[in-house]
């Protein structure tokens, strides 16, 4: 029997359980396939660089595999993955800021490449461009709460900021998006 077909029929909890208890790479590989698209989009929104986003997402997957024992299942697997991803991004950002190399993320040219996505509409393209104008925290908070179904409380845990700050960060980010997209129309 094709193992891929078996994994495809399993739900997320069963896949995590199998990857954890039997150390089954096939089960974890299915989780990677299911979550890579969303995770890489989230990482790109944070770091604004496609190849760096891919590297950070890969590092996130590696860490998730190593720490799978610690996943308690009290939140969605994607939420847990995004929290690891955000920590990977922060670590990278601190390293870059310390080294002050020419690869400084802030100096990168802000470009959205439609070819990197499965499909992207013109409105989504405009929104992604506008998202890049927001601060790191605003991009992360808006992405987590609006795009990836996290509650404000979960976003507060992931971003390690108070609940009230999450709400004000989202509100200020949304106002900036309205201003940027409103000016375009």
């Amino acid at each position, binding site marked *: 029997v094709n193992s891929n077909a078996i994994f495809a029929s399993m739900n997320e909890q069963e896949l995590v359980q199998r990857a954890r208890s039997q*150390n089954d*790479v096939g089960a*974890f*590989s299915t989780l*990677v*396939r299911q979550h*890579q*698209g*969303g995770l*890489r*989009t989230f990482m*790109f929104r944070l770091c604004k660089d496609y190849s760096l986003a*891919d590297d950070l*997402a*890969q590092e996130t*997957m*590696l860490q998730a*595999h*190593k720490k799978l024992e610690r996943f308690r299942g009290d939140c969605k697997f994607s939420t847990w993955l995004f929290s690891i991803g955000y920590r990977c991004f922060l670590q990278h950002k601190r390293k870059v800021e310390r080294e002050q190399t020419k690869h400084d993320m802030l100096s990168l040219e802000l470009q959205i490449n439609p*070819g*990197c*996505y*499965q*499909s*992207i509409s013109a*409105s*989504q393209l405009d*929104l*992604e461009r506008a998202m890049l104008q927001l601060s790191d925290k605003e991009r992360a908070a*808006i*992405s987590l709460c*609006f*795009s*990836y179904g996290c509650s404000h409380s979960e976003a507060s845990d992931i971003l390690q900021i108070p609940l009230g700050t999450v709400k004000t960060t989202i509100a200020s980010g*949304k106002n900036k*998006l*309205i201003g940027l*997209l*409103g000016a375009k*129309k």
Partner: protein
Amino acid sequence: VNKPNSGKNHDLSLQIDELLKSPPVMADRGYSEATTLLIENEMKQAKIQFMTIAIISSVLTLCLVSVLYSFSSPLVDTATNAIINFNVLVIAESILSIVDISLLAFALLPLFCVGIVRMTE
């Protein structure tokens, strides 16, 4: 009094909410396979590291037990027994965690040697 643009902004806000709810998804293009391969390689490397540590510690235990057996005093006998007991604990641990059956073999090796030495005495 409503600002002149408040209605327009409200519509735009709703549009943005809708767009945010359906974010674009990155195309896979072999990314999952590459990541899986990377994870498999990491696992192999971790296993090799673990095995290396197991081999080195077993050889060192074997050497220590051999040296201690060349002396004969109650204190040395106690120390030797303690090492053997520790090795038994390592075996029990490896049985419980079932890391790798070969680790069990490496942990058993010094005990076999000690057994052979005792039999030939």
